[in-house]
């Protein structure tokens, strides 16, 4: 096993474990109070359950396709940015869509590698189609991404709305993504053996067998991609999966507290936790729990207030 093997395994492992740990941390936070925000798309328009008299007697008719109707245009077309921040839309869409294409391309490379490992004829129609697609997507995805990264860099730097809130990491992220896109295009363009080398990389990684040598651009591409794998789980860019929580478990949660439900059990768990807030009107001492405090009024007798 080469150093490259080790680096690939390590970075993929870090990516998976760190993303999983982040997701787990969020998922394990206690059940929160309800905080829905309309539109809640699994309800048909004009059909919030609260619009019905005796709503608790009606069966819930959730339409989960409605959620897809919001999520798909949001993820693929950045609909929210289009509607509310038009000037940012193209740079952001190009950056995101370029990335999606490259991710899709990775899946195609994986498929092609598996076919080749399985001994499918090198000249088979499917293999030829895949080879053509991979090359094309490398150009289109990488090219779109480069355009997005460059425009985004200007936006971050010169747009007065964004520059005030930019941090060094924002520039670093754009440069890192830009390097991934640019090196992909360059590698695919300048190296006639591009396809055989990337499939060689995947095959080497999958079967722990030797990986072919790359061009300098190839090594650069692999290096920046691996760096991205290691870096991403520790940044706000994890919104690609934490969005699940912000939408599904908060805005669209929409789960009433019914008798005998899991929600009821979670409430009991939550309200029996000790409270330690320091303001005298709370009356907490680090031992009393939420139930113990619920009967209070918040009144603070003057002498107590002065002590505090």
């Amino acid at each position: 096993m080469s150093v490259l093997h080790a680096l690939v395994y390590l970075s993929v492992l870090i990516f998976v474990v760190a993303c999983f740990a982040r997701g787990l941390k969020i998922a394990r936070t206690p059940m929160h109070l309800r905080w829905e925000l309309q539109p809640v798309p699994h309800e048909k328009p004009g059909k919030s359950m609260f619009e019905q008299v005796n709503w608790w007697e009606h069966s819930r008719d959730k339409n989960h396709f409605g959620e897809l109707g919001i999520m798909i245009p949001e993820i693929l077309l950045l609909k929210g940015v289009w509607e509310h921040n038009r000037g940012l839309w193209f740079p952001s869409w190009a950056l995101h869509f370029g990335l999606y294409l490259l991710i899709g391309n990775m899946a195609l490379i994986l498929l092609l590698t598996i076919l080749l490992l399985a001994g499918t004829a090198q000249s088979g129609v499917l293999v030829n189609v895949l080879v053509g697609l991979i090359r094309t997507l490398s150009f289109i995805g990488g090219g779109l991404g480069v355009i997005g990264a460059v425009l985004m860099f200007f936006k971050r730097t010169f747009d007065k709305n964004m520059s005030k809130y930019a941090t060094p990491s924002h520039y670093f992220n754009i440069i890192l993504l830009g390097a991934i896109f640019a090196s992909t295009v360059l590698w695919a363009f300048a190296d006639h053996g591009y396809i055989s080398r990337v499939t060689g990389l995947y095959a080497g990684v999958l079967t722990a067998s030797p990986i072919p040598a790359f061009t300098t651009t190839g090594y650069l591409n692999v290096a920046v991609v691996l760096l991205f794998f290691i870096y991403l789980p520790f940044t706000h860019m994890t919104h690609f999966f934490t969005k699940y929580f912000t939408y599904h478990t908060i805005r669209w949660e929409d789960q009433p507290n019914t008798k005998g439900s899991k929600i009821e059990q979670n409430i009991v768990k939550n309200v029996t936790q000790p409270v330690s807030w320091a303001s005298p009107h709370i009356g907490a001492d680090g031992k009393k729990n939420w139930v113990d405090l619920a009967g209070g009024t918040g009144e603070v007798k003057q002498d107590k207030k002065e002590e505090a």
Partner: protein
Amino acid sequence: MACQFCGVQPASVKDISKGDDPIAKIDPKDLMPLPAPYDGPEYTPDIAELKDETKKTYGKSSTLDGVLAAGIPQPETKEEEAELVDKFLDGLHKLFTKEDNWTFLQPLMLSMEHCARCQTCVENCPVYEASGFNEVYRPTYRAEILRRLYHQHVKPGNKWFKTFQNNGIELNYTLISRLYELSYRCTLCRRCAQSCPVGVDNGLITREIRKLFSQQLGWAPKELHEKGTVQQLLVGSSTGMNSVVVKDNIEFIDEDMTERLGWEVKTPWDVKGADVLLIENAGEFLAWPENHGCTAALLDKAGISWTMSSEIAGYDGVNYGLFYDDVQLARVASRHFAIAKELGVKKIVMGECGHEHKALATIGDRVGVDLPPRESILTLVRDIVKSGALKLDPSKNDFAVTLHDPCNTVRNLGIVEPQREVLRMIAPKFREMTPHGIHNYCCGGGSGFAIMSGFNFNDWRNLVSGRKKFAQILNAFADEDLNTDETKKYVCAPCSNCKGAIRDMLDFYGAKEKSGIHYGGLVELVVNAMVDAAEPVLDWDMM
């Protein structure tokens, strides 16, 4: 420090910890223009200057934007300041523990860690827009302060990496006292959150900041705390009315309504086993008594078995805890639920009060178990009107009507259609505002602002936070003559707090006298259209 070039807004987030002068100022020339005939400078006066004495007493907390909503007396010594900063820091840690903040830990953490700083949300904020895009009111400005503090002081990790990702900020007394004030420049309307592609919620962040100040330092506006939740839990109502006074008032309202309608209206009290426990915002009984009178009349006409409760807090649906303090929120909501259980009613019907809807129907849904069901009066009224139990003559409402959507009712609960269905049946000149429904603009009085009037905050509310709504109201009546009070215009606002804010706004701009713009609830319009009412319930001179 205010920006050296413009002098009216902070140059960066870091300015919150710096300098002794206000970091922002409201210049009337910068404010969003109002539509005609309110576009003259006389309709956008200066905000009253804080008195020197006030500035001295409230010290650094008065150096945000020249406005004071809550204010904290300036500590006398540096040591006291340092103590408060330590206490704040302790509270900041608690905000991210599951024991002390299970209530909102997950949404808060997600909002702290995933903002892309893309600013897609900002132009959806009515306060930021109406202010002429003053940096200090940018939805992400206050969120960014908490975010930097969180990463710097709470989140574990390498210090260098955290600064690389989030920049830093100096934590000192100047910051906390200004941040406290700044948390009362957002109406918690959550319009910004609707447009965030990532799902970050700057309204929630503001509420969490308020909570930290209240639950840890005991800092909260007196209108919300001492005179709000505490008074409600001690005396029975945030209005200060005990059960004897409230019963007296309601008796008077019933008598007046009986006289005006020509049939008996009588509010039942403490009826065990009634189907419905009606809990309204007790502010109605003093400021808009006809709202209760009309609600009672409709419930009677529909033959509903209902009651009110004279228990402490049982006759006042407000829950200001919703705006600033989870413990107070839970205490009030628990009282409401316990009273309903004790009476053995089938359901609580929430009166025309937006934040009561949110506090009881959704937020309060997880403060206890085996809770009685809650339903909106808007939904119930829609069904009463549609049932045909009332004889209605829409021509009695032959004036221009527009509808204000209370944020809590529409944006949180999604109750959008029932009030419209009713208006379409009883108000022939009903027209929508733009935008409306779930994309409405706040009345400017959300999150407690409607009842907060200390120092020069009234001016700020009318000129800045309510400005967008006032412009919307004017635009909704653009086809009417706005230079006369002869043609009546009615803003239907089915929420007590919104009515309070709209009342003050119409007074501030003189819009009732100049343009004949009045306001009121939904039930008043329904009863006004009733064929068998002896007199109309809408009295334009009294409104």
